[in-house]
């Protein structure tokens, strides 16, 4: 006997059956998503590493938030073949009444150390290259800046007290990759022989482009790790693209969502596989009675499953390849020049993961098949424990998937706990409602009491359906609810901003300029919050990344300097959630209060010591309290606040931030203010709104996409939960018809049954969603959980309607056959 041929015949006869199609479509959707993610990731990673090779502009780049000492600088010169120092400062460039916040690169005479700068006379003219920096009185501006400020080559611009001539339009620079994917407009000037070109008192970044041999690179790496302040060290020869870590986090987050999607797919596949198992057992028993051995019988079943698997994977692979092409087009604006990369190893690894996951769901089936005997044809099939086994294997597969992708075990654990709690709620509700319903109907007549009686007797089967439906609706509600709440959060952030112009950063010496401008133009400056720029460098004497090992938004943000503020009492817009704020007369200056989310993200406790690099000095503070935002007052909440008396011990420039209500005259004269004070950073509220809208649009796209996938899988679960028990329902309905129940009453019976099933599932899912929101929202997403009753009610009603309609349609089609045939078929 040819096992493969026999299995192929079996596959051909079963592939058009409803439940087989369900299983294949469900597997196909999951495979398509995971393969698309793998292929897109491979393309991006390849692009990034290629970028690193060609766009770093040096063998090694060292970036620091503060300048190096003379000794360090001498070391760099000694351990390199060439060094170029660049100062990167955020300033405002003006032209007449136009102004634009830009990233200004102040380069030295050694720039660039590798490659050439691409320039042109205008945005559309021919590109030429330059192998040196602009002359001291020249500025090169990028095409967007030139367009925004309506500047052309030859025009003059003023920054502070210095005038610059626009020497060329900047098209590309060799160290372009280091701008990351910043959307800031750029310009380059050259420092004069004395050092910086500007008297700049704002926050700057120092970048050193270094050409070095392999031995020198080793020395440089060791030196960078021994420095007292944190630096970013990138070696072109050792990989480590600046964006690679970010992309990896995105990939891990998406992979984590697959845990949820796989959960739903597993439910759909399990439900649809029930009738397949019955048929498979019957078929195997018959073949055994014809002389086939158990071993060969199982091999036939396995090969048939394998054929089904590849019949799913191959189309999914093709579709994924096409999809990642579409995604690549979308990403072209972020990753210029990106090209498709087919990483066969990564694709095969993903296929292997899918193979393991789908096989895990079916292992209970193979175990049950192995117990099949010819006796089952004589005595009938007994109920196996396949259902319970499936739960175990699905759990193992979920764990494997989570292990493969997650980098945030806390979030993963919370989601799994929330889903498990939802599951428990659904099981409990099924049992309680059906038992109470049966008890209520015990001495009553009518269809409804009869329905409860029948449902209670079929508790296990009904529970499976309810759980499958309930978990799907939970995920759907959660993702729709998340979108709704994100929207509200962002809107509330917008509403809480004061004024129509936000001063993001103004140094203390420039504050009088601002106030003069406000007085002259009739504008109003609200209270400005003071701060100093500080970098968190140590927690309890450990480097930050050694203490806070879990990746998080806070940890990522703390790689750059933050704003450290101070106050006497608790600010109006904060409330203490843990510990005690310092008293007004407290002389202990070494205290700090930390924002709640930061505490959680970094795993901080009261009593932990935080060391900040502020200017040239290191300051250590002890955490005494934790605070969160409270409505009322300004919208600014500082992550770190120290007592007011600590300020006198900090030798650094004070900066301010706050809202301004600019008059019409104020808008007209704002550019003059910015020209005189280029390091002043202001953002019109409109721009903040646009950025929030852009961010939200991106989030909304992603959430809609995810919700659509959940919806598709939910529909499959509903279909599987109805069709998985169709044969049982047919037989049962046939029996009831033979007992005198009319067709109409049978339909009513079905209506009641499916309505009760759907209602329990829907109500259970509302409870599950509440659990999910409570657990995950505030802990991981920093969102206020604000469930929308209207959303929950509408999704619940839609679910109930869909389930009932589908149940009725399937029942009706079964009853169009004569009762006798129905019993015969059953």
């Amino acid at each position: 006997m040819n096992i493969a041929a026999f299995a192929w015949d079996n596959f051909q006869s079963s592939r058009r059956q409803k439940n087989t199609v369900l299983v294949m479509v469900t597997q196909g959707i999951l495979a398509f998503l995971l393969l698309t993610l793998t292929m897109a990731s491979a393309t991006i990673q390849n692009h990034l590493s290629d970028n690193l090779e060609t766009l770093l502009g040096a063998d090694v780049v060292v970036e620091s938030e503060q300048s190096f000492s003379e000794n360090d600088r001498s070391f760099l010169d000694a351990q390199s073949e060439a060094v170029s120092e660049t100062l990167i400062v955020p300033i405002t460039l003006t032209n007449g009444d136009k102004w634009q916040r830009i990233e200004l690169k102040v380069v030295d005479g050694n720039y660039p150390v590798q490659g050439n700068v691409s320039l042109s006379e205008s945005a559309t003219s021919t590109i030429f290259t330059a192998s040196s920096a602009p002359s001291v009185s020249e500025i090169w501006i990028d095409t967007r800046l030139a367009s925004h400020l309506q500047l052309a080559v030859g025009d003059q611009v003023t920054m502070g007290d210095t005038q610059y001539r626009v020497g060329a339009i900047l098209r590309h620079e060799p160290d372009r990759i280091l701008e990351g994917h910043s959307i800031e407009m750029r310009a380059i000037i050259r420092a004069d022989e004395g050092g910086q070109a500007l008297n700049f008192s704002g926050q700057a970044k120092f970048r050193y482009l270094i050409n070095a041999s392999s031995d020198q690179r080793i020395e440089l790496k060791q030196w960078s790790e021994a420095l007292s302040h944190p630096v970013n060290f990138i070696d072109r020869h050792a990989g480590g693209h600046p964006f690679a870590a970010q992309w990896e986090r995105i990939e891990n987050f998406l992979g984590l969502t697959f845990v949820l999607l796989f959960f739903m797919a597993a439910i759909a596949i399990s439900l649809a596989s029930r009738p397949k198992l019955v048929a498979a057992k019957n078929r195997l028993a018959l073949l055994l009675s014809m002389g086939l051995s158990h071993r060969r019988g199982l091999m036939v079943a396995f090969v048939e499953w394998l054929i089904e698997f590849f019949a799913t994977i191959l189309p999914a692979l093709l579709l994924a390849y096409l999809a990642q092409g579409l995604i690549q087009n979308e990403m072209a604006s972020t990753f210029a020049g990106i090209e498709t990369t087919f990483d066969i190893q990564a694709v095969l690894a993903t296929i292997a993961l899918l193979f393991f996951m789908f096989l895990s769901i079916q292992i209970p089936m193979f175990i049950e098949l192995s117990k099949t005997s010819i006796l089952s044809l004589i005595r009938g099939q007994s109920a196996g424990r396949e259902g319970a086994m499936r739960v175990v294997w699905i759990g193992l597969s979920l764990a494997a998937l989570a292990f493969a992708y997650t980098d945030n075990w806390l979030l993963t654990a919370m989601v799994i706990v929330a889903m498990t709690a939802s599951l428990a709620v659904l099981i409990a509700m099924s049992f309680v409602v059906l038992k109470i319903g049966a008890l209520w109907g015990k001495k009553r007549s009518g269809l409804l009491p009869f329905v409860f009686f029948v449902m209670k007797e079929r508790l296990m089967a009904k529970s499976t359906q309810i759980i499958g439906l309930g978990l799907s609706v939970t995920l759907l509600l959660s993702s729709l609810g998340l979108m709704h709440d994100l929207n509200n959060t962002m809107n509330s952030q917008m509403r809480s901003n004061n004024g129509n112009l936000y001063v993001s950063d103004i140094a203390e010496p420039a504050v009088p300029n601002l106030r003069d401008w406000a007085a002259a133009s009739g504008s109003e400056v609200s209270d400005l919050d003071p701060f100093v720029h500080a970098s968190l460098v140590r927690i309890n004497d450990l480097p930050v990344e050694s203490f806070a090992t879990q990746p998080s938004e806070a940890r990522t943000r703390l790689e750059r300097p933050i704003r450290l503020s101070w106050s006497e009492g608790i600010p109006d817009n904060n409330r203490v959630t843990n510990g005690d704020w310092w008293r007004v007369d407290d002389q202990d200056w070494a205290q700090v209060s930390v924002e709640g989310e930061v505490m959680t993200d970094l795993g901080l406790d009261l009593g932990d010591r935080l060391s900040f690099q502020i200017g040239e000095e290191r300051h250590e503070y002890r955490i005494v309290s934790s605070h969160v935002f409270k409505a009322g007052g300004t919208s600014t909440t500082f992550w770190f606040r120290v007592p007011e008396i600590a300020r006198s011990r900090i030798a650094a420039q004070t900066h301010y931030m706050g809202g301004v209500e600019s008059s019409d005259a104020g808008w007209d004269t704002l550019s003059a203010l910015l020209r005189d004070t280029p390091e002043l950073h202001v953002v019109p509220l409109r721009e903040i709104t646009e950025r929030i809208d852009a961010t939200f649009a991106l989030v909304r796209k992603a959430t809609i996409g995810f919700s659509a996938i959940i919806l598709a899988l939910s529909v499959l679960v509903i279909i599987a939960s109805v069709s998985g028990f169709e044969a049982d329902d047919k037989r049962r309905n046939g029996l009831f018809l033979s007992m005198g129940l009319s067709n109409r009453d049978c339909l009513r019976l079905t209506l009641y049954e499916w309505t009760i099933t759907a209602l329990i599932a829907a109500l259970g899912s509302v409870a599950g969603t509440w659990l999910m929101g409570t657990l995950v929202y505030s802990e991981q997403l920093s969102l206020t959980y604000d469930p929308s009753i209207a959303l929950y009610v509408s999704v619940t009603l839609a679910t109930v309607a869909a389930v009932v309609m589908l149940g009725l349609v399937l029942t009706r089609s079964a009853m169009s056959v004569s009762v006798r045939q129905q019993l015969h078929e059953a």
Partner: protein
Amino acid sequence: MTAPSTTRLDDVSHHFVTDEEEIHLFDQLSFVLNAGQVTSIVGASGAGKSSLLAIAAGLEDPKRGTITYTVKGEAVSSADFRKHTGFIFQHFHLLPEMDALNNLALPLRLKGDAEAFPKAREWLELIGLSGRANHKPSQLSGGEQQRIAIARAFISKPDFIFADEPTGNLDQKTATAISDLMLSFAKETGCGLVIVTHSAELAGLAQSQFKLDNRVLERVV
């Protein structure tokens, strides 16, 4: 005294159509089934006995001819007639997820009988299975399952019971016991029992015996 319930077939013919041909089962049959009587129909496999039974029971409509149903002298529709009938199947058709007691109580629960379970217990006692009340069908032998199926058919005291090869899946000894059970219940309840069977022995126990052969129904007794 009320008139007995009846099923009257007048010039009934039936056939079914395959891809290639029309297969005629019987032509122009006329006979009457009365409650209170035991009637058997025998015939070779494929003669159309089960189809005739289904038509007489109101489960299917014949291709030609008329059927008149009366319940206690009043003419009723086939749907209403079915409310006064029960069925016994060759393959028992107990619900696998319900135990013996619940399977037995099913028709009474369907009719909203508040005393469904006490009555079911009585019938379990009658068929000698009171100790198996909580056992599922998979834990019962074929004979035990068929006893429950028979009791289930009789428990709601129908006017007619239609039995389709009720002993077809049973050994000789069990078949005899089942036959005796059915007939004694029919006598006690006064319902009309219509049995389709291969078994000459079972057929011979009926008061009216018919044979379906070559599309013709012939009265034997």
